[in-house]
C-alpha cells in the first residue's frame, strides 16, 4: 500500500473536473487542475441549470433517473447555497401527453422519485401563468441551480483541501517517462503565453465534449460526439417552479425559472467541433413556440439571451468501462496499454458528484490508495472561498 499521498492532474474545470478535484483532494491527493479558460467556461457554465429530480428520464432510462434522484437529494443538502429549490411540475397539454401519464406515474414511483398528482385547479392556483388548458399535473422535486457558483463551490471545497487551480492554462500535450507512462501534461499559460509542464502520478482527462481531442494528444481514442442544444432566456420569471411537459424527452420540454428569468430548453444535434457553436435562429424560434405552449404570456415577453452548449455524448463500441450507463470512465491502461491516464466523460451536472466519486474510486484502485469518498457528507465550502489563497502554481 502507498503511504505518501499520490498526486493527480485534472484537465478541465467543468462540473466533472471541479467535483473530482474536491473528491481526490479530500482523499488526500495533491491535486492540480488545469483548465484552458475560466471555471465552467465549457459546457458546464452554459448548462440549462435544472437539478433533475430524475422524472424526465423515469420512463426512457430508469438507471439515469435513479442516479438523478439520489444526487438531487445529496446536492440539495451540500450545495444549498446555489440551488433554488421550489420543485417542478410535469403538465399534460394534449391527449398524447395524457396517454404518457400512466407510464410516467409508474416510472417515477419505480425510481423512488417522490411524486404528487395534483388537480389542475390547484396547479393553476400555484402557478397562475401556466397554460390554463393543462389536463393534468404532477409535482416532483426539481430545482434550479446557478452553474458557475456550483462549480465554484466544488472548487472552493477542493481548495480547502489543498487543490490548486490553474485556470487559463491550455493543455497541449502529455509528458511521458522513460517507460512511456504518462507522467503529466504540457500546457501554455494563456495569461503570459509561456509554456509550462506539470507532473503527477496520474492524469485525468475531464474535458467533457473535448475529451476526444485531448485524448488524441496521447494517441488514444475516446468516442465522444459533441451534441449541442440551445437555451433561450426571458426577461421575466413567469413561474415559481420548474415546468416540464409531460412527455418523453423532447425539444423545448423544460421551462426553468432562475433569478428573475425563465429559461426554455433544449434541442439536440451533433457537431464535429465544440469550440464555437452558433445559435441557430430557427432553433430559437422553435424554443419560443414551445415555451409559449407551457406559459402563454411568454409569447410577448422579451428574450434576454440565447445560448448553446455541447453535451459530451458517448458513441461507438468502445470498451470503456461503464461505471454507469450515463457516463464513462476510460482507463487507458486496460484499453490501450497507456499507463497514467484516465478519461471521464458523459453524465450530467446533477450527477457530477457521483461521477467524481466513481472516477476517484478507480484512480485510488489504480494507485493502491485506500481512502473512501466523503463528499456526500459535508456541505460544500462557500463558493466565494474559491478565491481564498488564490495562488497560481506556475
Amino acid at each position: 500500500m502507498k503511504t505518501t499521498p499520490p498526486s493527480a492532474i485534472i484537465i478541465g474545470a467543468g462540473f466533472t473536473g471541479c467535483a473530482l478535484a474536491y473528491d481526490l483532494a479530500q482523499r488526500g491527493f495533491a491535486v492540480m487542475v488545469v483548465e484552458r479558460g475560466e471555471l465552467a467556461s465549457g459546457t458546464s457554465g452554459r448548462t440549462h441549470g435544472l437539478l433533475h429530480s430524475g422524472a424526465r428520464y423515469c420512463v426512457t432510462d430508469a438507471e439515469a433517473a435513479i442516479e438523478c434522484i439520489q444526487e438531487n437529494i445529496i446536492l440539495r443538502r451540500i450545495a444549498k447555497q446555489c440551488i433554488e429549490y421550489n420543485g417542478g411540475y410535469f403538465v399534460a397539454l394534449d391527449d398524447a401527453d395524457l396517454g404518457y401519464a400512466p407510464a410516467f406515474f409508474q416510472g417515477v414511483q419505480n425510481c423512488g422519485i417522490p411524486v404528487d398528482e395534483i388537480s389542475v385547479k390547484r396547479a393553476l392556483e400555484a402557478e397562475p401563468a401556466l397554460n390554463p388548458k393543462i389536463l393534468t399535473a404532477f409535482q416532483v422535486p426539481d430545482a434550479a441551480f446557478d452553474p458557475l457558483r456550483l462549480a465554484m463551490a466544488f472548487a472552493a471545497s477542493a481548495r480547502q483541501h489543498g487543490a490548486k487551480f490553474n485556470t487559463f492554462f491550455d493543455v497541449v500535450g502529455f509528458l511521458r517517462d522513460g517507460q512511456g507512462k504518462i507522467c503529466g501534461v504540457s500546457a501554455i499559460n494563456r495569461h503570459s503565453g509561456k509554456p509550462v509542464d506539470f507532473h503527477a502520478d496520474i492524469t485525468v482527462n475531464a474535458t467533457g465534449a473535448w475529451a476526444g481531442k485531448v485524448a488524441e494528444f496521447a494517441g488514444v481514442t475516446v468516442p465522444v460526439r459533441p451534441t449541442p442544444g440551445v437555451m433561450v432566456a426571458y426577461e421575466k420569471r413567469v413561474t415559481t417552479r420548474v415546468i416540464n411537459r409531460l412527455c418523453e424527452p423532447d425539444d423545448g420540454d423544460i421551462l426553468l425559472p432562475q433569478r428573475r428569468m425563465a429559461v426554455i430548453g433544449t434541442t439536440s444535434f451533433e457537431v464535429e467541433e465544440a469550440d464555437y457553436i452558433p445559435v441557430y435562429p430557427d432553433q430559437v424560434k422553435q424554443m419560443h413556440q414551445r415555451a409559449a405552449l407551457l406559459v402563454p404570456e411568454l409569447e410577448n415577453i422579451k428574450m434576454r439571451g440565447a445560448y448553446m452548449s455541447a453535451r459530451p455524448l458517448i458513441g461507438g463500441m468502445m470498451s470503456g468501462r461503464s461505471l454507469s450507463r450515463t457516463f464513462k470512465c476510460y482507463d487507458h491502461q486496460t484499453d490501450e496499454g497507456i499507463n497514467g491516464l484516465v478519461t471521464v466523460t458523459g453524465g450530467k451536472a446533477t450527477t457530477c458528484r457521483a461521477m467524481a466519486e466513481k472516477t476517484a474510486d478507480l484512480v485510488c484502485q489504480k494507485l493502491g490508495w485506500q481512502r473512501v469518498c466523503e463528499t456526500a457528507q459535508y456541505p460544500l465550502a462557500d463558493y466565494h472561498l474559491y478565491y481564498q489563497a488564490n495562488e497560481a502554481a506556475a
Partner: protein
Amino acid sequence: MTNQPWQVQIKIQRQRAGEKPYVQAFALEVDPDEYVLDAVERIWAFHDRTLTYRHACHHSTCGACGMRVNGREKLTCITTIRSVTQNGGTIRIDPLRNFPVVSDLVVDMGDFFLRMNKSDFNSVAPDNAARLPYEHPKKLETQTEGEPERLVDCIECGLCISACPAANTDKEYVGPAVLAAIHLMYTQNPSQKLINQADDHSGLWRCHSAYECTEVCPSGVDPAWRIMDMRKTVFKDRVKSIIKPRLPEKKDA
C-alpha cells in the same frame, strides 16, 4: 434573428501578464442581434486563440462576462451588437476598471468575492426577500417550510464597481455591490455586525451618490438605492446610540 449581416470592427484592449497594454482590431461579420460575447468568442475560436476573457453561463446568471463596451460597463452575454454599434461601425472592448487586469479582458475578482463573503452574502433567499423592498409593498415574512426561494439579483459581476467614480479614486472603498449585499442581508436578518460593516471607514460614507452603479447594474439590484437606504438605517442606529449608548461589548468587532 434573420438579418442581413453587418460588418463591424472590434477593437480589444490586449495585455499579456506583466506587459504593456495595446489595442488590436478585428474585422468581423456579425448578426446585429447576436451578443457581444458571441463575437468575442468567435474572435477567440477563429481569429486569435491567445485572446483571454471570462465567461460561463451566457444568459446573465453568473456575472463572469462583464467588460467595458465603448467605455460603458456591460454584461456582454446579453448586450446585442445592435445596441452598441451600427453596420460598418466599431466596438471598443476593454477590461473592467477598478480590478487588477490579469491579461486581456480577464480581471482578478478575488478581493471582491472575499469582500462579498465577509458581508455574509447569501446567493439564495426567500422570494419576498430577494426582491427590492420598494417593488413589493408586502412586509417581509420569515420563511416557512415550502415557501418559494430564489437566487438573489446580484450576480457579482463587478460592473457597478467598475463604473463607480468613488471606487476609482479610493482603493479602500468596498464599492456598491458589497454595500448592496450588506443591505440585502440586513433586510433579511438585521444585526449590529452588518450595521458596523456598512458604517466602517471603507463603507457607506465613501459613496459620492453618483448613481452610476444603478445605471450599469444588469440585474436590477439598484445598489445606489440600497446604499441610501442603508445610510438611513445606520443614521437611526447612531441616533439611538446617542440616546441610549451601546455597551461596548455589544459592538461587533
